[in-house]
């Protein structure tokens, strides 16, 4: 199948002169229709910047974003607007993603009317109510005239999803979409998103720092791990979680606090050589993880950026030293 979305050597730099930082550095990946891909990494790894470039909200410094096989930079303005609507984004903070001065009705009907999805009046209302039901905000009539602050964090996030659905998107970038939602309702939102994937044939790029959530959401899909602007490893979720190959992925998995006392006790602790993440302003040469990496090989790791290479177990790993090695995460 042809990928619905592909990025090639995508790079984003911010600032000028000495302040210039490379937030995303030659990132390439492809996502097929219906696939669920999680982009995982710590703050500052470039995952959100990548998401915003994919959604056409931020222009890449170099590299290409291809949506349905077409480079978005070469689209004419009508085609670009179609692409813009086809790719929607769901933000992290439910307190900032909805305009506090608008009711749910206004939030949902504005895009419906603007893009002539419905006629003004009763049909607009009907469609808005339908969408609220799609995102499990029922009874929809009780919600439609509420202001965002009258809703809980989870309900707001559902409204944000309904708003994205107004323009019938094919692709949704969910940027930390449940990180700020109460623990007890995260799962129901993830389940709802998974249902949209089936019912509306929406493909998801799920961006998160939470590996446990990524594992749960993309169990049948893929995880891509980013570190300081580069992809260090990707692969099918089940392979990546049980058999991580890149030392950074291993370190990350071993560091994640576990919500289970037995697992917490039995987890292997991978000791890093340095605890602090280097600044984007002064990135180390070669593999950017080498100053912290326990397997650092001088003369190899600190010279050139290691290429992402495919491994037979599935996916790609950017580490020539440890690509073949397996590590147990539990002791």
């Amino acid at each position, binding site marked *: 199948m042809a990928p619905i979305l592909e990025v090639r050597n995508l790079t984003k730099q911010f600032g000028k002169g000495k302040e210039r930082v490379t937030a995303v550095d030659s990132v390439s990946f492809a996502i097929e229709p219906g696939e669920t891909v999680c982009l995982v990494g710590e703050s500052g790894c470039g995952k959100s910047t990548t998401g915003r470039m994919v959604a056409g909200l931020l222009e890449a410094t170099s590299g290409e974003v291809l949506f349905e096989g077409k480079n978005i930079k070469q689209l004419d303005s009508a085609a670009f607007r179609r692409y813009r609507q086809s790719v929607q984004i769901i933000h992290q903070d439910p307190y900032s993603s909805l305009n506090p001065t608008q009711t749910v009705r206004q939030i949902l009907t504005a895009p419906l009317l603007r893009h002539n999805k419905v006629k003004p009046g009763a049909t607009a209302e009907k469609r808005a109510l339908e969408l609220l039901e799609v995102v499990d905000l029922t009874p929809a009539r009780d919600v439609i005239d509420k202001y965002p602050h009258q809703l809980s964090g989870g309900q707001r996030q559902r409204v944000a999803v309904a708003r994205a659905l107004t323009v019938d998107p094919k692709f949704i970038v969910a940027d930390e979409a449940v990180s700020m939602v109460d*623990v*007890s309702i995260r799962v*129901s939102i993830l389940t709802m998103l998974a249902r949209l994937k089936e019912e509306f044939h929406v493909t998801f790029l799920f961006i998160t720092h939470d590996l446990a959530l990524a594992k749960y959401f993309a169990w049948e899909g893929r995880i891509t791990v980013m570190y300081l602007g580069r992809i260090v490893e990707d692969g099918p979720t089940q392979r990546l979680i049980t*058999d991580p190959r890149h030392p950074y992925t291993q370190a*990350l998995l071993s560091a994640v606090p576990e919500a289970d006392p037995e*697992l917490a006790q039995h987890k292997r602790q991978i000791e890093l050589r340095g605890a602090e993440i280097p600044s984007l302003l002064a990135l180390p040469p070669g593999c950017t993880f080498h100053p912290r990496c326990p397997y650092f090989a001088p003369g190899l790791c600190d010279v050139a950026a290691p290429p992402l290479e495919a491994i037979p177990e599935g996916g790609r790993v950017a580490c020539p030293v440890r690509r073949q090695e*397996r590590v147990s995460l*539990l002791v």
Partner: protein
Amino acid sequence: MAKNKLDWHTGEQNNGRAPLSLENVHVSYATRRGKVRAIRGVTLDLHAGESLALIGESGSGKSTLGLAIVRLLPETAETSPGVITYRRDGREVDVLRLKPNEMREFRWSECAMVFQAALNAFNPVLKVWAQALDTAKAHGWHDKDAIRRRLVELLEFVQLDPKRVIDSYPHELSGGMRQRVLLALSLLLNPQILILDEPTTALDIITQRTIIKLLRELKEEQHFTMIFISHDLAIAAELADRVATMYAGRVVELGASDDIFYRPRHPYTLGLIRAVPTVTGGFEQLFSIPGSPPDLVELPSGCKFHPRCAFATDRCKQEEPELEEVGPGHTAACWHWREVEAELQRNPLHRGALNVLDVIEIDEEVVS
């Protein structure tokens, strides 16, 4: 490591009594919409040398309770009825009746609070050394050399390079470093109890791990008495001896960490645990709790959890259950805890482990 030089006050016995006892503590705020009832009758003993985790969602009252203990609530907060008794070296004080100057002393020298390491936990124009010096001086400690020695020891304990950190401004430090500096500063005046509010939230995963390791060291090697406040169950699983689940301003379940994670008896605790995925655990079916956290102004009748509870009956709508003993050292406030127990026998909270290389056997007894 200079650990042995640190002069911790942790071995005190207080004649076998808990260093901190909360009795029927209430906190409420008057607002235009009505009275916000943030804490409604919490009774709790914090034992010497234990680490207790308060878990719950937003609005459960866990943070308010922490702030109430060190009396950092906004002025509009009403804190009666209720008694918070603090004990050290055989003396006993009622925290809620302390005068403002006594309270300042209490906050650093007896019961220190460590906040989430946001920049605003620091004075932005003071270097780390100046912050420490100000704090020490405000508490009548004027020997500059001794203060410096103490700070250096503490910074080494939190695995920071004192030379680098001591003359830095807060903004020059990373989030993880700031959290460690905050921890070191809070230990400066040798408190008996530490209260940590979301100690790892907003930190990167690998940094979270270094903080967890440090706190484990405080717990396991120094037997520090600590309270962790977090929405993140993982913090409780990683660090707590005992866990208190809070909902709508009350402790609804309290027990040893293993009891709470593997043998919960309150449907809310069970719901929370079933809602949270793990990384190395097997692929689990997760469930969320229906509905939203309660409105603290218009609380539901009876058990405050009944609108979201699968076990709820008419009795739950009318009568609010009190904590009752459900096992040794394990209490829960639910009319139907036996049904929760039966449910867990049918569907145990057995996550198993996912790691394909050497799968660990989880102790059968623990899972029960």
